[in-house]
């Protein structure tokens, strides 16, 4: 456990002692700001029936951040170490492969969570300006944060796998982005596939991250969404572990 915590700390340190972490957070804040500026403009022009939460999570900004920021966060986890040669050094230390994978995943996830923290502050500040407490439902806000975390787990796990598969950070980021986009679009296909088709619709519906996040942003918790995010995270982490272990027999 101690080794795991040390590794997490080391990984977190690499995010916050370099420019990368601050650049990512600043870019994310800027995109969030753009989205909220649009929402403010809309709410100031005419009354809307959607809450601030729903308005934000239905916007392109959220998905843009999720699809682009997670590959940037995760691309260096394994690929950079392999490229610089520190990966073999790490693997010769008395830590298991599982500890290494979990530590890198945890660190990336914690950084991802830090990236979204300002969103809570911005939402609560805007709630003050609307003078309507119902415009930001605290239950819905908690649900939305839970949803963002769960979906983030899945995307960070995808990024871990992509980074473990290659030595190049650029390829890792591209792989991660494409895989994340594919999952997002596959879920979106649920709207195009008619329910009469049966299981294809059911499968796509279960993968529909947009719908899952919409539920979370309204404060609705559905175990189907929770199970999907947790189980696929587990799958990608398992694949990452196998990819890390593959150096022993390749």
């Amino acid at each position, binding site marked *: 456990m101690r080794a795991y915590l040390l590794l997490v700390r080391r990984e977190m340190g690499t995010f916050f002692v370099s420019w990368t972490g601050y650049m990512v957070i600043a870019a994310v804040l800027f995109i969030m700001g753009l989205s909220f500026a649009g929402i403010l403009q809309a709410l100031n022009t005419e009354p809307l029936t959607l809450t601030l939460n729903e308005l934000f999570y239905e916007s392109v900004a959220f998905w843009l951040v999720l699809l682009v920021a997670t590959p940037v966060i995760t691309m260096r986890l394994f690929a950079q170490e392999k490229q610089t040669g520190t990966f073999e050094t790490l693997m010769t230390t008395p830590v298991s492969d599982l500890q290494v994978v979990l530590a890198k995943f945890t660190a990336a996830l914690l950084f991802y969570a830090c990236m979204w923290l300002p969103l809570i502050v911005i939402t609560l500040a805007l709630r003050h300006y609307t003078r309507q407490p119902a415009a930001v439902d605290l239950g819905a806000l908690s649900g939305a944060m839970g949803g963002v975390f769960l979906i983030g787990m899945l995307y960070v796990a995808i990024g871990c796998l992509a980074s473990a598969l290659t030595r190049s950070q650029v390829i890792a980021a591209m792989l991660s982005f494409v895989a994340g986009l594919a999952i997002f679009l596959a879920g979106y296909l649920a709207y195009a596939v008619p329910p009469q088709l049966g299981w294809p619709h059911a499968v796509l519906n279960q993968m529909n991250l947009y719908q899952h996040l919409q539920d979370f942003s309204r404060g609705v918790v559905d175990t*189907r969404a929770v199970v999907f995010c947790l*189980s696929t995270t587990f799958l990608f982490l398992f694949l990452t572990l196998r990819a890390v272990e593959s150096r022993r027999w390749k």
Partner: protein
Amino acid sequence: MSKAAVTSPSFSFSRRLGAGVEVLIACLSVLALVVMVNYLAVRHYWRKDFSASQRWTLSPRTLKVLESLPAGVKVLVYYHQDDRLYSEVTDLLREYAARNPRLRLELVDPNRQPVEANLARTRYNLAALNQRNLILFDCNGKIKTVYQQDLGDYDLEPTAELSETGQTVFRRRAKNFKGEQLFTSALIHVISPRVLKAYFVQGHGEHDPASTDEIMGYSKFAHLLRENGLETATLTLFGTAEIPNDCHLLIIAGPRTPLTQDELEKIARYLNQGGRLMVFLNYRSFGRSLNLESLMAAWGVMVGERFALDPANATPTSQFQDLVVPITEPHAVTRPLLMGSAHLLLPRVVSAIKSSGRAAETLKVDEILHTSNEGILVKDVENGRPVINPASNPRGRFSLMVAVEKGAVPGVRAERGSTRLIVGGDSMFLSNQLIESRNNRDLGGHCLNWLVDQTYLLAGIEPRPLQEYRLDLTRRQLLTLNALLLGALPGSVLLLGTLVWLRRRK
């Protein structure tokens, strides 16, 4: 040859292949496990609304109905995405579908999905409905339609804008969303084996529901009844014939000759048992007593002897026989049609009697359609044309249609529920000639839906108030907020990054 060169590799190809197959099997096993877990999750799930407003919590009644849904219930949402209440409708129905995957939801936007819209129009004959947006519930061919107009309660709200004449501009604002009430009611209707029946009284020159006559026929109205889930039949009340027990709606449309005392007694009995009655009079009975007048008076409705005209609102080609009356009363029948209009032909005056003989607390009589303040009462007709005498004809705002509801009496349960009546001064507005004019068809549909309304079965499902959120920021405040969001917040993070970089450099 050196010794090393002849030694076989310690990690041979077969070993590597073996390890690779092992990893592949392990990965496929985990994938299968993930698929199985998700399969079970889809079949056995738990869903809970944690929001403070509980906006997405369905009523226990709706949940019970959804639990009992048979396979093959389809909901077609034929709705323009940009129109009012679209997101409320789709979100609520998605919540229904999330609760029971047997409910198949099909969303069709006629603008964005013209092919699907065309298919739906052909399959369900939607073109005949003349509706822009609707939600259709289909269970093995049994259909119930919910129209957009019925989905919300509206009121008029003044805006900051002024019209060219300097008057305040009003906007139509949805106050409540009645989707759950209507959708659950429609689901009950389509899955229930019970069939509602409407009887047309015949024998006094009334409109014939089977007649396709272009002027007097009532076939289009009969079609409207079927679309709303009511079977139609005709009925004569002569002799020993009684009003059947399966009569959910009795329609007396445009009688020309008087009803007998025996017939009136049967109708009175039916009404006292909680019957639902639609009476529309016709200009062809002008100058004659139909005996219905006394029965109506007992239910708080006065049927006048004269026609009400509204020359200012007559169509240009008519000789003042017709009138286009604006719908302004916020009654349950007319509220969805506020700001619309009805096209009537020589209507008789039908108004509420202020002090009815019945207990005022149980009998509710509402006038739901009026002429403008420039209405004229006319008593003479020559060659089918009203003779207007400006000197002697009374002027004012006259009532043309009345809705009556007898509230439940504590401790008394009527066989058919609570009595409801709609009495109108004109039957022609639902004839084949005029039913498609203005909002006549919708008005007819709302009248019959209100009359056969069974939402009393759905106690506990209340309309949801529609909350609107807005900001009243000045331009300066907006600029400050934008500067904070786009400049200060990302800038401060970059500044922090720079400080860390500088410190590490030292």
